């Protein structure tokens, strides 16, 4: 059936187009209205790399902070992560440090509160009311993080940074260079995509898979350890055993 199965998660602020990216990749459709994701959604697709069939099992998480306690359970055990921001909304780019600090700290596997300057970055300055709300959420956010530090043990996760909504050039608030620079500084792959026009959507998912595949070939993973979010497929003949004998159009009894 497949040679490998890779687990992906898609993370990023609400409304940046995570679900749209998934839908474009699995169904080749675009959904113009914002259907807020509740908890998580799931999608799957087969791709092929190096002539090997690879199944992508993709978990699209809710960007809303209130769901974070649920979505945290999915960070672990994924081989790839799509970290998405919206090029037309600066604050979604500013938030990247919040998202990434989780992964960074997880890589050091140390327990410490987030550095205060990061915390500042996460709070929109524009309005007092909003600051209050964000601060509330943010506090919970960090507190949870401390608890979960151990949960993010997979240091081999491949992360791609995605600047989405590239079709809205006239509303751009984050330049391509800024995105690329940020990615380089943090060792991420980078692409600008449009879930609407499908530009670069395939590439985003496939490039990530290529990177993971390279890591496998280099022997970076212990394939048997499923916490890396990678599974070796069964040999194709073994899969058929489970299936029932072919349909009986007659002589059923």
């Amino acid at each position, binding site marked *: 059936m497949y040679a490998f199965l890779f687990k992906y998660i898609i993370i990023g602020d609400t409304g940046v187009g995570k679900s749209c990216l998934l839908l474009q990749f699995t169904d080749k459709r675009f959904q113009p209205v914002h259907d807020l994701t509740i908890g998580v959604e799931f999608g799957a697709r087969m791709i092929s790399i190096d002539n090997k069939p690879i199944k992508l099992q993709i978990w699209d998480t809710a960007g809303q902070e209130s769901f974070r306690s649920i979505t945290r359970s999915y960070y672990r055990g994924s081989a790839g992560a799509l970290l998405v921001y919206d090029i037309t909304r600066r604050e979604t780019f500013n938030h990247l440090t919040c998202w990434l600090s989780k992964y960074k700290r997880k890589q050091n596997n140390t327990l410490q509160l987030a550095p205060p300057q990061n915390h500042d970055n996460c709070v929109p300055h524009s309005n007092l009311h909003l600051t209050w*709300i964000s601060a509330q959420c943010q506090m919970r956010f960090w507190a949870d993080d401390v608890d979960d530090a151990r949960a993010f043990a997979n240091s081999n996760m491949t992360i791609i940074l995605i600047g989405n909504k590239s079709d809205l050039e006239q509303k751009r608030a984050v330049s391509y260079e800024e995105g690329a620079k940020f990615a380089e500084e943090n060792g991420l792959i980078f692409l600008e995509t449009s879930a609407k026009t499908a530009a670069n959507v395939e590439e985003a998912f496939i490039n990530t898979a290529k990177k993971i595949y390279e890591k496998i070939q280099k022997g970076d993973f212990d394939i048997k350890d499923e916490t890396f979010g990678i599974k070796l497929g069964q040999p194709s003949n073994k899969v058929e055993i489970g299936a029932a004998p072919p349909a*009986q159009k007659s002589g*059923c009894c």
Partner: protein
Amino acid sequence: MSQWLGGLLNRAAAAGGLDGRSRQQESEVSADTLLDRIANDQLSVDDKQHAISQLTSLGKHMYQAVGSRIPLITKLMQANSNNIELLRESIELLTSIILCNPVNDNIIQIHNTELFINDKSNFAVIFNVLNLTSDHYVRYSVCTFLKTLLTNRFESVQESILACPMSVTSIMGLLKDSREVIRNEALLVLTDLTKSNQEIQKIIAFDGGFEILQDIIRIEGQSEGGIVVNDCITILNNLLKGNVLNQNFFREMGCIPKLAPLLQVQNTDMWILSDNKFSIIMSTLDLILSLVERNNLSTPANQQQISHCSMMNLIIRLGLGKMSSQFIRSKALYTLGEIINMNPENIAEFSAVSIKSELNGQSQSALLKLTLVLLHSKDLIEKQSAAHVFKCYLTGNEEAQMALASTITPPAPGDDDLSIGQHLVRALFSWEMSTTQSSTPSPASPTANTASLLANMRIDINGFWYSSMVIIYTLRDSTHAKEQMLKAVVEIPKSTATAGSGEQQPLTLFQKLMAALLATKKQQDIDPLIKIALLKILSIWLDKSPRVVTEFFKNGSHLSFIVESILQPITSTAANSLQVHIQGLFTAVLAQLMLNLDENNIADRNNLSSIINHRIGLNSFKEKMDTLRKTDQFTHAEQGEEPFQTALDKISIQLFDFDYTIFFKDICDKVRLLGTNMNKPRPGTRPSSAQSVTSPNTASSPPSSSPAVPHISKEQQQHLENENALLKKKIEEMELQHQQQQQQQKLSTPGNQSPLPPVVSIPTPTAPAVVAQPEPVTVTPVQQQQPTTEINNQNQENTQLINELQMLIEEKDKENRILSEAMSKLEDLILEKDDKLEELSNQIWLLNQQLQQEKQQNEQLQLAQSSQNNNSMASNDSNVDIFELMRLRQENVDYDAKLKSFEKQVNDQHHLIQTLKADNQQLILSKEEIVKKSSSSPPVPTSPSNVNNLVLAKVESELAELKIKYSSLQKDQDEIMDWATKLEVENSTLKAQLGK
């Protein structure tokens, strides 16, 4: 193992040292002392461990003391996570303080459970222990501990586990434990943990739960496995039921085909099935039912996979094969129905399946086999399940409906291989055969033997009933099927019998149905279900098909039979007589005739409306339908589709299914409309669209604007109607007299054998009311051949009186009609006037608007002029500039307005945010309060913070949305501000220019 025993011995020794009484006394002192010892940092781990085992030996006397200091124990565990012995004893201690005794009230244990759950770090320790140790006993007792927690406080444990991201993964680790004992305990934990919490279900799926469980099923030997396999299926079902994401995941990961082996049975299984195998098959069918549940987005794709991996065939084999258990057969059939429901591909595949018959080894189509089960199974659940398959097969599937309809043909004599349709028709009229044959013995004929055989058989009312259901499914919602069925012939008259009496038409199904219905009149003791079924068929058949109505009217006796049945007084209110139901259905049939009559058939329409209005009375007509709607059977069926029932005592024939109640209520609604139309009869000359042309503009005004005119005429009408009713009553009295006299007459003349035609036929069924009147006059003289002149005279007097009265009625009717015509004309006039009024007011409004604008312009002009005057520059050039200025000003005003509206919107949003914030705060407060309560007062029920959390999340998400909206609004506002300032700048430069 030896260590485990050692622990037990240790405990026994500690307990054995003291006698019961002194121990109790000591316990109150020592539980706290022991806990203090554990808290004491100076003491060694060994001492602390000893204290733990001493605590355990105190039994229930230490429950409360330990419960109040749980973190002490968990911290000790955390600090010594490599000390297996200590871990074991600690977990055992924790388990003992929450383990409920079924006999007692267990207040302390429940409270301890809550205390444990409320501190999140407790869970972290337990799961940390799981990850760090592979010790058999530790892992086993953690399972027991979790199980006990879940038993006590299942929802709050789910919440806590969700809040602890490591936990599910750790539990999945238990499931993968190579030691069966631990794995099986973990299965029990999961059975509780996966109940009803979708988020947990999803995380388990994410963590590979499906694969692990299906691996266990495979290792345990699929359907040959025991209780463990069944546990796995139950958990799979928990994970999938109602969870769209998990169903998608299950399907995408190729898990559906792996279920097939669970439904595979050997030939020997057909006769004797082990209990385990029985439950495995039943719960697998449950699992499949979850995958194809109604109104679930993933159902169509699941249905497709189920048939693609040939599981559908396995299920057909279970349902229609030789399987001896009727429970499995029935459930398999029901499941089959759900697999093909609304799925054209699966329906097509199912209809192509054939099964080898056990008797003659010939192949039989699955559908035919299904028909035989439906008609001949002794088991009601099985019959019902077979009917369910037919329902799913035929509903919304015109091709299948037409195909089934086409199998209704007259059976060839001597041919036992009946088609599906022939089987159904035979079952539909089997009761009639047996009753008519026994009451009027038929002359010797070639088929007499089989006929009498049938007559001797007890009527199988269930077979009859389900065959009627299938006929209904075949007809429903398909005009083509209805018309095709109209052509269906069920009997060809034998040429020998009809040789003398000329050409005789073959009997169609419709004719036979009507004849059977009419025949029920003569049979007092007939099962009421028969009437109900036939009437249901008829009401469905007539629906939206004028051709069927036309067919109905071809026989004059049909309508009078329906009307008589409606008018018949209800003699028995006994529940089993179902008279109310029957009359309600008769009324529905009459309503269907009225509603679906060909538009051009004015004669029948007038006749029907006069029957409904005068003979039955509109109110009584509606009432009879409403009475049916209030019956228990109807209100029960209204609730919705019945789930699959296996409890034998709950199974009985349901008079109505959900679909029929919807159908029936629809008729009622239409009748209500019909009623209002009938009350305000509109002359045929008036275009029916008149109202709709005038109404849209004045939708609200006409009824209220001038109610006086219609009101008066309504009163008049009422008055006339009352008069009419009185007159009718008189007529009826006279007629009664008349009849009595005739009866007397008959009695006095024994020679007269001819039955009297129904004299009471004010509107005869075949002719409109007006034509019907002279009938009594023309009929009576023919009838009155006896020379009893006195009676004759009286009769004539009576008929004359009747005639007069009827003429009066006619006159009144005419008046009535004229009045109502006038009324509708008046109404039209009012509508027209209203239209004009509205137009005028619109114009006034427009004028006002213009006036205001002009005023403004004037003002501006004045302003401009004054500024101009100040500069004393009155050239043509500057005039142009003035206009430009005016235009700019005007624009400015517009922008101002826009700005204001934006400001208002922004304010509104502010307001909303504020209220939401307040809500939020309140929620947080109440949450805190609850948390406080639950940790301070002992017997607090499950914490409702769960709900609050959800509400909070919702509010928060709404807030975030508002946030986004708000910022975009602000952006817009900024833009407009920019615009405005630009304009102002322009304005001032212009002004400056002007000034120059």
